[in-house]
Each structure stands twice: as structure tokens, then as C-alpha cells.
């Protein structure tokens, strides 16, 4: 047990009352005087040359204030990774997918803007298109991006150890091919933004984003203005899960429209446009060859992966690296070879989604390993325990695991789920499966090469000393980071959570790389802790001067200044505080210990505003080979799950009955929020395993850009999750804390796959597990047995 007062407990979220009462303002809830409404013209054709764009009729429509095309905004290339800046705000020579943006309009109301968009006439000359990886990689295939021959957006070739030797020493070698489907982020709030380019040349963009900092850099770069004149503010955001971690076209278009019109411009995606913009999970095809010794020791892995990436790179370079690097753990593995290829196609661009790059790889390998364990006659739990890494293990691709409660997680889920009594003992049609996984606790390096701190935090005390105002550029997109930061600040300052106010998601508050790669608890948490320590130090320094007590003999606990030795006489200080606050109802009494707010007031009087600052940047991490940065992190969060399913042997319908999840988050800052991340991760994994697939017609148009036909789990699909929090006390984390937001999704799909096997005897290598697919696999197995 520890003696924390605030962290490592359950706290109601700071933002919950506003969200429960409808007061919380999301982007579409905001309005500004004189605000215009923008709309985008998007291509109806998957691949076509643009011969001419005629905007005359649109410009003449009453109420239209601006119409912009590439001719107006220029062709500055941008994107996520500077190595693949392959997007421009608008297409100029050709369109690359159905939905590619050609022009934008601002008008006095949305209907007029949309009418104007319909009046823009574009002459397209249709070009042959490539929709699948096979088509894109075929000899002589038309190119999506002329700069990238063979439609290869990025390729990776890595070998660690010696796989040939590893396979030679193996007693069992197996090759399987696994394929998942394109996912959609399916966050409930569609992206939206309001750009306000004021008359003094300062641009403020309010946007539903996960990454204010990166968006600020992109809008400054593309608009050609200094970074100091561009500000990005994130209001409340209705979920992100990855797709909101890059700049979207509306963000740039609205800035240009506002610059042109001198008025604020609001733009929103419809739900269909959310699907068109996509930037969600790729389709991955993994070919895995694994070698194992008779005793279960994993000897070698050859991983060949193709990713269907769509028309632009987005996060894809990181994705193709992650699809290899994230198999180096959580099992001890000395020999690993990876060949990855991200392929351009004439479809919406894929990007990052919860468990970035590793979810399909994990599903593929955990199912393959499960098969091999069964073939060796080993219990899947025993097999995993035998191979699990422990803290201190350095992977073949040089991930250093300073804490790693993998074994504890496996043992916990096996125990709590009653694995021993159930595995192999359930009736036909019912089954149990286990899988593991892990994720990084923040990318070790920024997306652009830089020595920037990953997070800076400011904590400012109010003049009366009663409130600590925490200012951070970090992005709470629903995961609860604001509350976690407030808890860390309160714990560090030694004051109550109700004395902390958080303002976040604004680039004016400092640098924070934002909500991606499960980084904020560890990284923003460090900067928050340091800023709070700085504030406390300054306050105690002044008290030390006034009371002639060494600062080192003082501390702050539960809002009260504590003294190591005899309590000094502070009655004069208290007297002046009370005198200053005549008429206030919350004055301290004449008796009682010295309160922090009194001490902070004294500090304010002596020094002016008390402002503490903190920053965090990981040390040099990881290897020096090409791509070593992707997957490198100060800490790693392992996860294990046991899933129980019922499969209808006649229809192939799967019902997930029960899920048991254990996750090592180092130390839970807010226990309730940690559980929330675990449950939410499992829900998204269940959706991908059972239902989710973005489907296209032969022309590259999305067939199901809506929640009726793109199914995500409802309250009737998702079972209750038994959550077990494992705390390994991460040395590199603030108070020992590390990630939970993404590691928890890693085992979900394979645990379901392995449970379906236990129930039916089938192994399915293509997601999602639709009734047709499962039914066919059951029938095929029956035929084989006959």
C-alpha cells in the first residue's frame, strides 16, 4: 500500500458534470459573430485528371463569400510525417479517391455553401484506378502518387538475430496468412472546426483534434505564417482514437476561407465525410512463419506484411514500421525478420487507430502461436507464461522494458476467469481463449525530427493562493487526461483535487504533442509533476524566508504546510491574511495549521505571480537502425485477456459472453479512468473482430458510410468485463504510471479467435468473424472430418 492522498484512487472526472448536463461545448456547439459556413467539394471519381474547374456560377450565388481552389491556396505539401508530405489542401492535377477535395466555399449559411459547391463544375477525365493491394502492386499498374513507383508508399526490411538459424533449431515451423479489414474510427463526434483569422494577422483555429500542436505547425506551414501567429484550440472533443491525430482538409480550408473573407468560418464533416476522410485502421495482410522448439520456446519469426493504405501516406510510415516492431514483445524472441510494404490505392487514406499498426499483427500471431501450443500439447496459458518477457528484458529490436507485468497479467486472467476448469471442458459451441499484447507508453520521438520537449506544463497560483491553475497543450479527447493531470498536480502540491483548475488543449499553453501513442499520462504527467514541484518549491522558499525555517524542513500535505520540527509562530502572517480578506467567508480560523493558500498568498506578496513550469522529453532511447524510433518508448504496458464465447453451430453467430482483462498500467492515477480505457479498448476490439469492415463498390465508393451498415458494438453486443489492474511501478513514469489506452486492445481479437476455436475447432484467418464466414468454416471442417 502507498500513502497517496489523491492519485491511485477513484475520482469523478472534472469534465463529467458539464458533459452530463449538456453544458460542455464541442466544436459544433460554438458560434461566433459574423461566422460563415464552409463546405467542401469532393471528387465523385476515384482516379481522374482534372481538366478544368469552373467556379463562376458558385461565386455569383448570393450569400457566397469565397470560393477557393488549388489556384487560390497554392500547393504546399503537407501530411503527417515530413518524409511523406504527399497532400495539398486541394487537388490540382488529379483526384486520387472518391472524396478527394477539390474546392471549398464559404457562405452566410450552410445551405448556400452546399448549393454553391454543387454549382462548381469540374471536368474530369477518368483514369484507370487501383483499389486493392493486388491491383496496385501489379506490373504496370497506374500510379496513385507519381513520385512513388510501384505504388509503394513505404517499405521496411529489418532482420534481428538470425531467423534462418532460429528456424533450423526449431522443432515446429508453421506459416499462416491473416487478413483484417479496413476499420473506421467511429468516434461519435464528426470532425469540425472554426477558423478565425483576425485583422491583426493572428489565426486561431478551434478544432476537434487530438493534436493541437501538430495541427498548429501544419496550418502555419501551409498558410505561410509564423508559428507564433497560429494558435489551435481544442474544445471538448467527442472521441478520436487516432483518425483525429493528423491535420484534416477542413482545418486548412477553413483557415484559408477565413483569411480570404476576414470572418470566422465553421466547417463540419457529415458522418459520410468522416468515412471518406477515414485515416483509420489499415487493412493488413500478414504472412507469418514461426519456429518453436518442442519445449515451447519461440525461436524465430518471419513477418511479411502488406498494408492497403489508400491515396495518401497519413500516418502510414509509422504504421508499416509498427506492424513489424510490435511483434518483438511480449515474448522473448531473439530472431525476427520483417518485410513491410505500405501500398497506395485509390481509396481514402488510412492512418492510425487505437493500437496503431499492431492490432492485426497481434491477432495473426496470437492465433498462430495458439495453434502451435496446441500442436505441442501445451496449455495456451502455460505456453505464454513460458515465453513471456519480464522487466529488464531488452527485445531484439532494442525496446527496453523497465517494468513489464506480463506474467502477472496472464496469471491474473487465468485465475479470475477459471481457465483451468473451463479450457477444453466446455460443451461444443462454447469456448474460452487467451491472448496477450502490449503497447508503447508514448512515442519516444516526435513525428517531425526535433529536440523539442514533448510536453511543457505551466501551473499558476491564484493571487489568494487557493487555486492552482494548470495550463497544458495536451488534449483530453475523452480519455480523462485533464483529470489525471489535476490529480498528479494535487498530489505533488499536497493540496486537494478541488483546488486544481485545468485548462488544456490550447497551443498558447505550451508544447504538448497531444493525444496519440498513449503518451499523455507518462509524458504530460512528468511535466505536470515537475511544474507542481516548482510551484511548491517557490512557495516554501518564501515561507522559509519569512519564518526563518529551512525549506527542506517543510512539506505540504492535504492543503497544510507541515514542519519537521517544532511548528514556528506564523500568527503575524495569518493575521495579515485575515485582514486582507475581511468579509470573505473562507478565512482560516485563528487556530489551526498553516494552510497552503496562506503560504501561497505570502509568496505572491513577496514575488508576484507564482508560476511553476515543467517539461518532459524522453532520454535517448532505442537502437540506431533505420526505423528504430517506431515502437521505442520510455515504457511499455502489457495486457492479457481471456474471452468466453458461444457460437451458434447452425448459423455461425458468435456471442461474446464474458471478458477478463488484466493490464499493467504501472500505477493507476485514476482507477475509474483506467478501467474505462480497458473496457473501451475491448469494445473496439470486439467490433473489429465481429462486425467492422468498410466496404467499397467496384468504383471505389464506400458502400456503408453510416452506422446502420457499418456496425460498431451496441450495449447488447458488449459483455461486462472483469478488469484487473496490475501495477508494476514503472521507473520511467510519473509516480510509476504508464499507458492503458491502447495496450488493452491488443489481445482482444486473438482472444476471441482462440475462444471461437475452442468452441468449434475452426481457425479463421480473415476478419470480421461474420456468421457467413464462421458458418462456412464450420461446414468446411465437418466435410474435412468426414
Amino acid at each position, binding site marked *: 500500500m502507498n500513502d497517496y492522498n489523491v492519485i491511485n484512487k*477513484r475520482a*469523478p*472526472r472534472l*469534465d*463529467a*458534470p*458539464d*458533459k*452530463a*448536463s*449538456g*453544458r*460542455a*461545448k*464541442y466544436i*459544433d*456547439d460554438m458560434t461566433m459573430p459574423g461566422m460563415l459556413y464552409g463546405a467542401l467539394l469532393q471528387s465523385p471519381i476515384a482516379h481522374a485528371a482534372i481538366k478544368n474547374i469552373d467556379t463562376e456560377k458558385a461565386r455569383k450565388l448570393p450569400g457566397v463569400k469565397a470560393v477557393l481552389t488549388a489556384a487560390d491556396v497554392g500547393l504546399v505539401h503537407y501530411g503527417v510525417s515530413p518524409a511523406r508530405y504527399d497532400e495539398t489542401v486541394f487537388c490540382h492535377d488529379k483526384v486520387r479517391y472518391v472524396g478527394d477535395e477539390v474546392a471549398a466555399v464559404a457562405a452566410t449559411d450552410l445551405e448556400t455553401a452546399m448549393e454553391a459547391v454543387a454549382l462548381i463544375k469540374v471536368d474530369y477525365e477518368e483514369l484507370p484506378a487501383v483499389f486493392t493491394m493486388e491491383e496496385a502492386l501489379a506490373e504496370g499498374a497506374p500510379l496513385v502518387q507519381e513520385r512513388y513507383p510501384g505504388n509503394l508508399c513505404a517499405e521496411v526490411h529489418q532482420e534481428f538475430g538470425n531467423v534462418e538459424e532460429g528456424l533450423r533449431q526449431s522443432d515446429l515451423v508453421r506459416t499462416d496468412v491473416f487478413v483484417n479489414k479496413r476499420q473506421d*474510427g*467511429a*468516434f*461519435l*463526434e*464528426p470532425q469540425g472546426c472554426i477558423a478565425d483569422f483576425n485583422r491583426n494577422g493572428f489565426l486561431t483555429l478551434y478544432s476537434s483534434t487530438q493534436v493541437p500542436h501538430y495541427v498548429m505547425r501544419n496550418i502555419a506551414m501551409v498558410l505561410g505564417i509564423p508559428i507564433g501567429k497560429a494558435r489551435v484550440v481544442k474544445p*471538448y*472533443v*467527442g*472521441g478520436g*482514437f487516432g483518425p483525429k491525430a493528423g491535420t484534416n482538409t477542413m482545418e486548412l480550408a477553413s483557415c484559408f476561407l477565413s483569411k480570404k473573407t476576414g470572418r470566422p468560418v465553421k466547417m463540419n464533416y*457529415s*458522418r459520410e465525410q468522416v468515412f471518406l476522410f477515414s485515416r483509420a485502421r489499415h487493412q493488413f495482410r500478414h504472412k507469418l512463419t514461426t519456429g518453436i522448439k518442442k519445449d515451447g520456446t519461440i525461436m524465430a519469426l518471419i513477418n511479411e506484411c502488406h498494408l492497403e493504405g489508400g491515396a495518401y501516406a497519413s500516418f502510414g510510415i509509422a504504421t508499416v514500421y509498427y506492424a513489424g516492431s510490435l511483434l518483438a514483445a511480449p515474448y522473448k524472441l531473439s530472431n525476427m525478420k520483417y518485410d513491410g510494404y505500405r501500398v497506395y490505392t485509390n481509396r481514402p487514406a488510412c492512418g492510425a487507430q487505437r493500437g496503431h499498426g499492431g492490432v492485426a499483427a497481434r491477432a495473426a500471431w496470437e492465433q498462430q502461436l495458439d495453434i502451435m501450443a496446441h500442436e505441442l500439447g501445451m496449455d495456451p496459458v502455460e505456453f505464454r507464461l513460458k515465453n513471456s518477457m519480464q522487466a529488464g528484458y531488452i527485445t531484439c529490436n532494442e525496446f527496453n522494458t523497465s517494468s513489464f507485468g506480463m506474467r502477472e497479467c496472464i496469471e491474473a486472467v487465468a485465475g479470475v476467469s477459471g481457465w483451468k476448469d473451463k479450457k477444453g471442458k466446455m460443451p461444443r459451441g462454447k469456448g474460452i481463449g487467451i491472448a496477450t499484447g502490449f503497447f508503447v507508453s508514448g512515442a519516444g520521438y516526435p513525428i517531425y525530427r526535433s529536440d523539442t520537449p514533448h510536453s511543457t506544463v505551466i501551473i499558476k497560483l491564484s493571487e489568494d493562493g487557493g487555486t492552482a491553475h494548470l495550463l497544458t497543450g495536451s488534449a483530453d*479527447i*475523452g*480519455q*480523462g487526461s485533464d483529470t489525471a493531470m489535476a490529480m498528479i498536480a494535487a498530489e505533488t502540491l499536497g493540496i486537494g483535487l478541488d483546488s486544481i483548475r485545468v485548462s488544456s488543449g490550447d497551443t498558447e499553453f505550451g508544447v504538448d504533442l497531444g493525444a496519440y501513442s498513449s503518451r499523455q499520462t507518462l509524458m504530460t504527467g512528468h511535466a505536470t509533476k515537475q511544474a507542481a514541484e516548482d510551484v511548491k518549491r517557490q512557495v516554501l522558499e518564501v515561507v522559509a524566508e519569512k519564518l526563518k525555517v529551512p525549506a527542506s524542513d517543510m512539506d505540504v500535505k492535504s492543503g497544510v504546510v507541515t514542519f519537521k520540527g517544532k511548528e514556528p509562530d506564523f500568527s503575524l502572517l495569518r493575521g495579515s491574511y485575515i485582514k486582507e480578506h475581511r468579509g470573505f467567508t473562507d478565512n482560516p480560523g485563528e487556530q489551526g495549521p498553516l494552510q497552503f493558500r496562506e503560504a501561497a498568498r505570502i509568496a505572491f506578496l513577496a514575488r508576484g505571480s507564482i508560476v511553476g513550469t515543467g517539461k518532459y522529453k524522453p532520454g535517448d532511447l532505442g537502437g540506431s537502425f533505420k526505423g528504430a524510433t517506431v515502437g521505442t518508448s520510455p515504457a511499455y504496458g502489457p495486457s492479457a485477456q481471456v474471452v468466453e464465447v458461444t457460437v451458434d453451430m447452425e448459423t455461425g453467430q458468435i456471442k461474446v459472453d464474458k471478458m477478463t482483462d488484466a493490464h499493467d498500467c504501472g500505477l493507476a492515477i485514476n482507477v*475509474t*479512468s483506467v*478501467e*474505462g480505457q480497458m*473496457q*473501451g*479498448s*475491448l*469494445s*473496439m476490439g470486439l467490433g473489429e473482430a465481429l462486425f467492422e469492415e468498410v466496404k467499397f463498390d467496384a468504383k471505389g465508393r464506400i458502400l456503408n458510410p*453510416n*452506422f*446502420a451498415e457499418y456496425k*460498431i*458494438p*451496441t*450495449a*447488447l453486443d*458488449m459483455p*461486462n*468485463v472483469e478488469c484487473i489492474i496490475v501495477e508494476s511501478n514503472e521507473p520511467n513514469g510519473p509516480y510509476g504510471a504508464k499507458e492503458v489506452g491502447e495496450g488493452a486492445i491488443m489481445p482482444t481479437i486473438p482472444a476471441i479467435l482462440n475462444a471461437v476455436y475452442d468452441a468449434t475447432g475452426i481457425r479463421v484467418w480473415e476478419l470480421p468473424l461474420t456468421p457467413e464466414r464462421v458458418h462456412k468454416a464450420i461446414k468446411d471442417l465437418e466435410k474435412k472430418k468426414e
Partner: protein
Amino acid sequence: MKRLIKTTINGKAFELAVSPNQTLADLLRYELGLTGTKKGCEIGECGSCTVILDGRPVNSCLVLAVRADGSSITTIEGIETDSGMHPIQKAFVEKGAIQCGFCSPGMILSAKALLDKIPSPDEEQIRTAISGNLCRCTGYQKIVEAIASAAHTGVKNE
């Protein structure tokens, strides 16, 4: 041509001129500033815009504003009492049922419509009642717990 409708929203009588193609969701959000009603899909599939219309939870994006003539509507802004948040709202806050919060107003109103009819629902009834309200963040568990807890509290209060 706009049409005049009479409707009661959160207990207050309104006479409003509405366009024939205007949805109730847009009327609430953009004309009356009741932005607690969210729009996640605008085609009745996500439940974020749920309001209570004459005692029944409806997707306000699928209801034309003219259809609200003569009806009584409750939005998330209308369920607080003099003593503060409604017990369901309180339970959502306390149980950690809120993450991004975008589904919360609709979810809370679906829960309210349920508890108004069935004060002590079982888990299946709760899950069925909110099955038209999508949530991508929570996996629904803490939402179900919050509704069950609010039902329990409500029973105790009576």
C-alpha cells in the same frame, strides 16, 4: 414558407416559426441554443440527439420540427431539478460513465425514459433501452452500472 408551431420544451411554452424541412435537432441546437442535444450522424443511427418527446425517447434528427407542434419535449438541459443534477446525471458522473461525453446527453435521456416507465429495470432491460445509443468510448459497462445505480437510488428516495 415557415409554419408556426406551439410546443413545450423543458416545461416552457414556445411559439416558433419553423421551416418545413427543419429537424427538431436543428431547431433545438441552432434556434434555441440547446446544444446539449448532439448530432453524430443526422440519420437516426447513433442516438446522440435523443430527446424525450411526449414521454418517448426519439432521435430528434429524424423528427421534423413541425411534428413537434402540440408536443412536450425534454432535452438534457431540462432534467435538472432545483437541487441540482438529476439522479441519473449524478450517477453518470460518479460511476465514470462519461468519457468523451458526446453520447452522454442522449444516453441519459434514454435512461430517463426507461426509469420513468420501469423504475427498477434489470440489466437486460437497461441494455435494451440504450441499444439505440452508440458509445465508442466506454464499452457501456459503466453506463449500465450508472443507470442501475440511479434506479436503485430513485427507489430508495421514494
